[in-house]
Structure formats: C-alpha cells, structure tokens
C-alpha cells in the first residue's frame, strides 16, 4: 500500500524539523502512542494502541530515522507487531518553506501481514490517512503551544 500526502504547519521550518524528531513531541502527537523510548542513535521503541476496525490492537515496534538532511528531509523506517498481524513501513518526509509556514510532504509504502492484510487491507489506506492526519494535528497544536 502506498501513502502520500502533505501538511502545512503554521510554524517555521526549523521548529517543525525539531519537533518531528523530538521524542517528547512524537509521543504526544502519535495517536494511541503509549510508550516511545530512545533505544539508540535515531532509533526508538514504540507501543501503539490502534482502535480502528480490523486493525484494532496494541502494536509494539521500532522506529528508525535515516538519511537526515537537516531541515530538509529524512527517511523513517517503522516495524510493528500486534495480535492482528504486523506492519512494515518506510516513508520519506520532505520539508520546505511555504510563506510563513512549512510544508511537509510525505511519501511511503506500508506492507502488512496477518489479519491486517486479510481483513484490513481495504481499510488500511483510510486508517493510515486518518492516523497521519491526527498525528499532524497533534504536532501542530504542540507547535502552537511551545514557541520555537
């Protein structure tokens, strides 16, 4: 499944970049994130609770950040496993200035296996978009709360 989209933040690029790599900010913004811990250089372990139809369940996994081009782009590699199955994803995020705000574009691919694939593949795109939307909204409100 391929995912692509964008979000415009009302914050300067430097602040957005910082927030997107800040474990504290990520933990708060990722929907259903119960735990996010740094386990190494640019690597985190996460526990996520997802409450959407066939992909409902608690997932544990890792997030790795790679190919950082400061304030411009990075790649995110995600693996997660839960009762309904497992997912593996890879996405590239690109930041660019957009007037007084910052445009974040993402493009990535998600592979699912287990019940998620069998029962949820039709729902997966919608669910992922929903979760990504919630994530950006959460980030946005944090950026508004704390000054860059």
């Amino acid at each position, binding site marked *: 499944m391929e995912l692509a989209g964008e979000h415009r933040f009302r914050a300067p690029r430097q602040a957005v970049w910082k927030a997107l790599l800040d474990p504290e900010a990520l933990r708060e913004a990722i929907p259903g994130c119960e735990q996010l811990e740094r386990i190494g250089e640019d690597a985190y372990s996460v526990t996520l609770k997802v409450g959407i139809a066939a992909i409902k369940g608690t997932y544990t996994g890792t997030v790795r950040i790679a190919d950082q081009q400061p304030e411009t782009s990075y790649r995110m590699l995600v693996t997660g496993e839960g*009762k309904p199955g*497992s997912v593996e994803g890879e996405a590239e995020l690109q930041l660019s200035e957009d007037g007084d705000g910052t445009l974040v574009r993402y493009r990535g691919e998600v592979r699912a296996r287990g019940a998620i*694939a*069998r029962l949820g593949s039709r729902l997966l795109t919608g669910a992922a978009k929903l979760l990504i939307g919630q994530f950006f909204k959460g980030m946005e409100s944090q950026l508004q709360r704390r000054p860059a």
Partner: protein
Amino acid sequence: MTTMERPVLPKLIGARVKRREDPRLIRGRATYVDDIKLPGMLHLAFKRSDVAHGRIKRIDTSAAEAMPGVVAVFTGKDLMALPGATRPVGARGTYAAKIGAGLPPMPIGTPFPSPDHYAIAPEVVRYVGEPVAVVAAEDRYVARDAVDAIVVEYEELPAVVDPELAMQGQPTVIHEGFPNNLALPYVPMGTGVDPATGQVDNSAIDRAFAEAEVVISQRMVNHRVAPNAMEPRGVVAHWDAGKEFLTIWSATQNPHILKSMVAAVLGLGEHQVRAIAPEVGGGFGCKINIYGEEYVAAALSRILERPVKWIEDRSEAFMATIHGRDLICYLDIAARRDGRILGVKMKLIADIGAYNMLLTAAIPTLTMLMASGTYDIPAIRCELTEVFTNKTPTDAYRGAGRPEATYFLERGMDMLARELGLDPAEVRRRNFIPKEKFPYTTQTGAVYDSGDYEKALDRVLQLAKWDELIAERDRLRAEGRLVGVGLAFYVEVCGLGPSSSLPTGGWEHASVTVERDGRIRATTGASPHGQGNETTFAQMLADLFGVPIEHITIEHGDTGVVRQGIGTFGSRSQAVGGTALMMAGEKVRKKMAKFAAALMDANEEDLVFENGMIYVKGSPSTGKSFAEVARYAYVPVPLPPGLEPGLSEEAFFEPPNNTYPFGAHICMLEIDRETGEPRLLKFFAVDDCGNVINPLIVEGQVHGGLAQGIGQAMFEEVVYGPDGQLLTGSFMDYALPRATDFPWFELDRTVTPTPVNPLGAKGVGEAGTLGSTPAVVNAAVDALSEFGVKHIDMPLRPEKLWRIIHGRGQA
C-alpha cells in the same frame, strides 16, 4: 381385514416433492458438528502462518502454556515423527512418545509425485494460513487467546506468487525435489498422444492448423475462487481409551473416506474408527478433502484422552480451506471460414498453491478431458503444467476442472463467431456432435454416453426468444445503452465411477430394510449436504414399495450405520448412489414378494406393490397390507422353504462409465456507461441431466450452480498481494453474489437418458456452474463490442469495464 379402503398414493418419481430436509434446517433443528458437545471436551485453535513463505526460526509457546485453561500446546515437530520432537508437553509427552510413532505426512488421492505435507508445518511454512501450532484448552476463548500468545519468528523466504514466473524457478523454489516449482512438469492429452507411453505425434494437430482458414488465439485466466460453504469446516474427535476406538464427527462430504484415511494416518485399523458427517452445511467440493485439522483433532484426543473440538471461523476458511480453479489457458482454435473447427490447442498452467491435497493434481486433468466440449473436433492437443506457489492449495470446487474447460472453449467459440461474423448459435450448431454419433469418443478419450445438443440449443433459443432478444439488444444499443447477449453450451462429466477412474473406488453402496411394522429404513453411502437425497431417495422407495413417503427414512453420513460408501462429489449421488439404492430396494421387494406369495398362496411374479398393499395384479381387494407381510417376514410361521427370515438387503453399484449431462445458457447483460457496473437483465438455462426424480430439487441445484458460476464471472476472486499475503480474507473483500444481483432464472430441460445406469439419471449438482460463467462473459464482451474488445478476464469488476469504456486500456 385386508379389504378396507386405502388411500391411493400418488406416484412420486418425477413429482415436485418439497425437500423433507428443509423444515429442520430452516427452523434451526438440525445438528451440525458445532452442536455436538461431549463431557470433558477440549477446544482446539490453530496458530497459522502470517508469512507466505518462511523458515520457522523459533516458536515460543511458554506464554500460551502458562495461561489458565490451556491444557497443551503442540508444534509441528511435537506431533510429527521428526528429530527434535522431544519437548515434553506437560506430563503428556509428545505424540510420538505417547503413540509410538508421530503423525506421518498426509496422504493424497492421486498417483503423482508429491512433497511431504504435514498437518502442522514442522520447519517451513509455504502459505499464509498454514498451521504452525495447535492449542488445546478448556474453552474456545482461552484457546484463541493462547494462539495469540504464541510467538513465532520466521526467516522470511521470497514469496512465489506468479505461476508463470514460478515455473521458471522464480523468485525461488518452494519444494526440494521439484525444480522450477513444477508439481507436474508436462502432461499431454488428445490427438496423437499415446496414453500408455505419453509419446506425442504432432502430425494431425499440425495439419489442422496448417489447413486452417482462420485461427483464434487467446490467453485466458480462470481465476482462483473460495468455495465458501455456509457452514465452515469443523471436527469433533473422541478417542475411547478403554475400547481403543475413535469416533470422529466432521463436516465432510465423504465420511467413509475420512474413516479410512484417519485410520491409516493414526496407525489404527478401520475397525477402530467411526466417522460421522452430521448435518453438513454445504461443501461444493471443499469438504471432499481430508484436512490436517481432522488428523490433529484425532491425534490430540488420543494423546490427551479427552474429546476435542475444532470449529473453523470464516476468515480462517478463506485461507485454510482449499481454493478452486486458478488455471491459465493459452487457447488456439483452427477453423474454416464456414465455422467448422479443424483443431483445438489448450496449453494449461495450473497454479495449485503450496501442496497437493486429496485430488489437487487430478482436477486440471479433467479440464483436458473435457476440451472437446459438445463439438466434433477432429484434432485436439492439451498440455498441462501444474505449478506450486505460496498460496492455499487448490482442489475440487463445484464443477472441478469442467467449468474451466467450458469457459475456455465457449469463450473461444464466441471469438470464432465474432471473427467470422456468424451467429454464435450457428457456429456451435455447425460443430455439434450429431446425436447419431453417441456413444462418442472425444480426441481426449472421454466416452460421451448420450446427447442431443441441437435439441437443447433449439430449446434455449426458443425459451429466450433469441431473435427478439437480439432485436431488443439492438434497440437498447440504439438508445446508447451498453447491452450484450451471451450464449454458452456445456457438457460435463458426472456420476463419477467406475473404479478405474477413482482411487477410492467408483461404486456406491446402499441398504434397504423393511422393519417389522412395514416402515422402511434405508442407508446410502452418498453423504448429502444440500443435495436433498433424503427426499429423492425416499421418493424412489415410495414408488418401489407402494408406501407413503412418510414411512421411509434415509440414513446417511455415519460409518457406524452405513456399512460402506464412497461419498458425495462429482454429481454422483443420484446416478450412482440412487441406482445402488434401487438395487437394494429391488432385492428386498423380491424377497418380500416371496413372503407375500406364501402368505397369499399366489405366484410372486403376479404381485403388485401399491397403496400400502401387496396384491395379485387385477384384484386389489384380495391383497395383504404391506405391514402384515413385513410382520410375517420377521415371525415366519411357517418359514417358506428356501427363505431366511427378515427383510434387509444391501447392494453395491459400479457404473460402467461416467455420465455426460449437457445444456445451454443464455444471458442478457447491461453495463453502465458511466460507472462500468454490470447488471444481469435476463438469464435462461436449459439443462439436460437425463431422467429426473424431482424437478424441484433439480431446479434448486441449477439455481445454486448458476449463482456460483455467475458469482465467479462477476464478483468473486481470491487475491494475493505480491508478497503472498491473502488480501481477500473476509466478505468485505471477497464479493459473494446476493439474491439482488440475479434476475429471475428462466429454466427448462430436455431429457436424454443415460444408458449407463438403469435410472437414466445423469447428475445435476455442478451443471449450473459450467454454462453460466462463459455466458456472462460472452455477454459482457458483446456489450462492449463497440470498443473493439476481444476478451475480458473475469471477474467483471466495474473498474475493469470502465477502463475499456473510457479507453484507458484493460486492467
């Protein structure tokens, strides 16, 4: 005392008798496997592979075993006779330790070479859904939770998904010893092929194509579908340790085969196993197989010394029950410009999934056998390759190999008609096997028993009002609507037997007992699961003995009650099982006539059985009641010389040949220009299944077959992702047709009896799936003819049709 007035009983053979089974089914009073509850019964759940292809690196069952209510967890290695099967399970030990041997690989029913296939994968998983462990727990919920607590680590291997890449060994080889994933590398059939040596002489088929004035060539896919019986599979196993006797209840189509195979795999004698198919909610072929879960349930009951139950859930069924079809065909037809066919070539590639099941390898050979269809084709060459992929294994699904042949050939006939600008009915008529030529031996070796194809064609054209239908289509087209008409003809193999054609034996068994009170209990080795044999078989006996149908019980599906049997598949119940029943009934009637003759001092040849009486022909008032003669047979004072007491006989019937029912289907279909959505407007079916016992049941069977045949053409498709993940694991993603998707089915019949059994009955269980699928696709191609489309692969998804309409190419 015997002269009292008796009601006149109607003759029931040929009558529209309502199914006696239905009241209990409709009112929820039937007993299915899941209704069986035994004291102390444990519940099983299977941990299944989430990866399409992988090596098991580690299975951690400790968390599952620690859960309250979990009695035992077994991996493949624990149950199988393999090194490493040493892990003790509680105090119970491994299966091998307990029984003295592990579960061997599962047997198959075809003679072809086959890789080892264990009920639970010990080392390598080869499709999503393959079992890797089983949990036995005190209740079903605990069992399911414990399965979730099992952690399996795989070393993922490349998934083999595309059969045409698979046969080049790409991206990898699934089974050692089967290079290039070839389950069957090359099987030729037809003209110039010596069946004994497999030697091939191409001269005749090459000549046909050299002399052709027109050649049609097309690659087609008859895609993978899921059988979707209303009741998923299920099994209850009870090992009686005291008697050393296993009773196994299963949602199966053939309890006698189950008994034999479970006994063999568990190392028991057949005298130690009783198999029971209680009420079975449909099978469509998928319940012919004996599955790993049945062996595992039997083995676990034996190890744990408790009854065990496993019930498949719906999404499990999508991946763990066999799939049907999945055949690619490269079709070539050589013809003259007058439409006469000179030769046909079918190059077939069967994607059989990860393993050979009971009949897997044999199913596509039936496609080759039926490549001649209803046509007198002088040269045919079929070539079959069967390929392993990382998917659920395929096997028999309603029609099993014959719908595929019909689809390819009938699509080809339409392409030929279109190419030559001929009426599709006329092209078929010019190629029909004339009725004088029966019995007719096809170039692929099938011996068609009887047929009158022109009659069926004329009947369907009349039923559909063909000329008016075409005029209506043209009128609607003139309004800008996309409307098409499709015709397809079929012939199929039914009444499976004789024994030379089936590894299980090709006979059927029946017994008939007239009880002391004159009521009749009969058994049949056929194991109906929707076919209505409790009704049709009782109709036959009612007429034979002249008694009310209410006085007759037909028992089936229990090897403890039905002494022998093969089972229900290949539309054989009526033709083979029905004949066995009539043979047993006639034996009993003959003996009963001897008792009646003695009682009445009459000649047994002069006796008539009618209206609950046995009397001398012409003088009904002087007869004895049926019940009185029955009583005398059990308390025979005096015993007539040369007679044993009692009225109970059995019979085996082995048919000399298969039967070949046929028919013609026509449909009218419209495609929405804006959305690409297809809708059936009309459907006509003429089927010839020989003599008919109950037209109502025959029509019901045709309706069901049509629903599944149309379902494949329009909606149903099993889809795998490029990584071998099953993407259609629920009814949200796998589209089954609904009643609202169908127009009124207009049905008719012609009657061409078969000479291969005394009933003249051919079989009708699968027929509906044969003609309907190509008829629908033919109609869709016709509807889109203005876009120059030659062929559309099924299913007719709106998106696919929309692309053709809007010039975006074929999906």
